[in-house]
């Protein structure tokens, strides 16, 4: 798994570089408001993408299968403010059960 070590090392270097960039290099200067606003939307955009891409695609095709039900269970559980581990276990268990039948 050499490829994965590449990923581990570069992600580690990159993550630290970003943390340092704002903290050490840029110091007390301010980013333009619009740029800061866009950057703060990265988690919303990417997390939304990972939820939907992870549920409704299979390789390069669009798919609706057991995962859709798992997703629905996760959304309901998160909406009911259940603890993270419960949300994860419920969603995984539902999907596993549907795959088994």
């Amino acid at each position, binding site marked *: 798994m050499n490829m994965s070590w590449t990923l581990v090392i570069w992600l580690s270097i990159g993550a630290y570089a970003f943390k340092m960039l*704002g903290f050490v290099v840029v110091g007390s200067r301010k980013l333009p408001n619009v740029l800061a606003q866009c950057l703060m939307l990265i988690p919303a955009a*990417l997390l939304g993408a990972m939820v*939907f891409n992870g549920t409704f695609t299979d390789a390069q095709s*669009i798919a609706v299968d057991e995962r859709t039900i798992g*997703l629905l269970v*996760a959304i309901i559980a998160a909406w009911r403010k259940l603890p993270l581990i419960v949300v994860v276990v419920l969603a995984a268990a539902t999907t596993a059960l549907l795959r088994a039948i």
Partner: protein
Amino acid sequence: MKFRIEPDVRPVVTSALALSGAVGVFALAFGVLAVGAGASVWQTCALSFFAFTGASQMSAMSIVSTGGTVSAALGSGLLLAARNGVYGLALSPYFGESLGKRLLAAHFVIDETTAMMTAQTNPRLQKIAFWTTAIALFSLWNLGTLIGAVLGGAIDPHTYGLDVGFTAAYITMLVPHLRTSNGRIAAAVGATLSVVLAPFLPVGLPILASGLAIFIGVRPQRAKASA
């Protein structure tokens, strides 16, 4: 020996510990899922120790697990890590001039430490909030990852629905970002792009492309009443 905590410090320490405990459980999930995605225990632990930024670690692992390339996984992980740069900007004025201290503190600039530190009003408590959260959270994040990774080796990811486990973890991370209308629009646009583009791009790239949704941020903040 008696160790006394000043009364105003206690609530800061208590909430730092509670938050770190919750994050430790999240790390457990990350450990299990990463090993399920094909990473070794060492690789999983190295990510938590050196990259130390949850969402980035998760997204990189899940792109790898669905057959995406290393570059796509890295791209998405780094894109998610970029916001720590913005946190760094926000926290920078709270820290002194010492470069060594800044270089060390930088490693701990993440969602949780930023939230804890900026919630305090006086400099002394801000420092305590940052470092208590940093130390407790870093320890539990790595401990949780190790336990999860060791447990995860015994599990077949597809049979146990671990792929949907990833998705479920993302949902809980997404929720706080849906409080603003810009956050909701960015999430919806990102989600749509990631599915619609899937047939046309190699695996992993649709997630990177969905990053275009962040340009909703150029919309003037005033226009909040558009529903």
